[in-house]
């Protein structure tokens, strides 16, 4: 099972998108973004399964919630950036 994280500049925005998916019955974990991810320090992210990736990007676009970056979780707690087109 592959997981992705969408990183936001503010916890408010992360919560905003999480709420949208909650209404949908989908649970997304809100968590502190790993410090290895270059985000000028502290940031929050939503963690979700790969099959939700398009839904996340589409919802963020629709509700005007800017995503700073998306990363794919790799083995050993590494993260690979996913280019948002």
């Amino acid at each position, binding site marked *: 099972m592959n997981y992705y994280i969408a990183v936001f500049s*503010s*916890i*408010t925005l992360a919560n905003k998108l999480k709420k949208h998916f909650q209404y949908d019955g989908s649970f997304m974990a809100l968590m502190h973004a790993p410090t290895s991810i270059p985000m000028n320090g502290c940031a929050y992210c939503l963690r979700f399964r790969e099959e939700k990736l398009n839904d996340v990007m589409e919802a963020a676009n629709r509700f005007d919630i800017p995503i700073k970056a998306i990363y794919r979780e790799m083995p050993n707690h590494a993260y690979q950036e996913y280019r948002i087109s």
Partner: protein
Amino acid sequence: MIYLDNAATTRHKPKSVLKAVENELKNSANPGRSGHNCSLKSSERIYNARKVLGDLFHIENIEDIILTPNATYALNFGIKGILSEGDHVITTSMEHNSVLRPLHALSGISVTRVKADCYGFVEPAWIEAEIKPETKLIVVNHSSNVTGSIQDICTIGQIAKRHGILFMVDASQSAGVLPIDVNEFQIDLLGFPGHKGLYGPQGTGGLYIRPGLNLKTIIEGGTGSESSLLNNPDFLPDKLESGTLNTPGFYGLSKGVEYVLKEGVSNILSYEHFLLDLMKETLYNMEQVTVYGPVDSKRQTGTLSINLNGMDSGVAANILNDDYHIAVRSGFHCAYPAHETIGTEKTGTVRVSVSAFTKEKEVKKFLEAIHKMSKTKI
């Protein structure tokens, strides 16, 4: 104690507010700082507070709501954040010191204070007549904390928009009592307290900022975001929310706002008007009592100023407290120009203010007390 000082703060809160504050105090965590479940839960509560405030004021992007310790901080953030040297501001003689003092403190700006009539009303045309090329901001108190007079912010907002001027509303006495739609009223900045008509705890308030407006920061510090940068983040709400929020307070406030939404702003207002009319019917017929402010209760929120002729307002308030266990506020109510406007700059007034929780029998007891006091020679 019969509490009739709700314009200062509402004493009686919905039970849900008390439970929420207690719950958060027992399960405290700092929202927007850590990643553990406790912190995330607290952050959800803060999010919900913004959400319900957004519902109340018809604010779409809830990140445009900055949470503050009270309306004074909100108004200061707005006024000092938006104005620069050379700007001209139009305001009214009915403003509270939380608007007048920051305007006075800012150097390099000019302020025109439009005088209201003896009932506390400012005609929108009087404001428009003072507009100059350098006018940057119009700041208006939606409802006076001295007389309850309601200003026509819908028309004033239209005037501001027409002239390309920013419009700020002080909703300290109107939030939760009068319908406020930031879009319909063309409001660019809205400052409000959480602890009055929104029935939240003290230590809560907020400032709505129209999208696209760029305010300078007044306070910088930890925001839980972009920590490696020395500047505050440039996005809202983080930019203007440094330091730990009053999470128990805002969780409580969210319940207060839910109460207001459930009861309905118009129903709360109707009830307050009923109580005002009950008071005025009797007070207008008392020879020794002067009633200030609007004659038509529909043009005011649940606040009334009176004086007992020949009795100092402070003495009157003390007698009400000591002999009748009735809480009111006397003096100048942090709004001296409003008293100059209604002619009470030497005496101040006794201010009576109701809430959704004020009982009819409490108002009747107050009227009995005033009746007895009006027969007393001091």
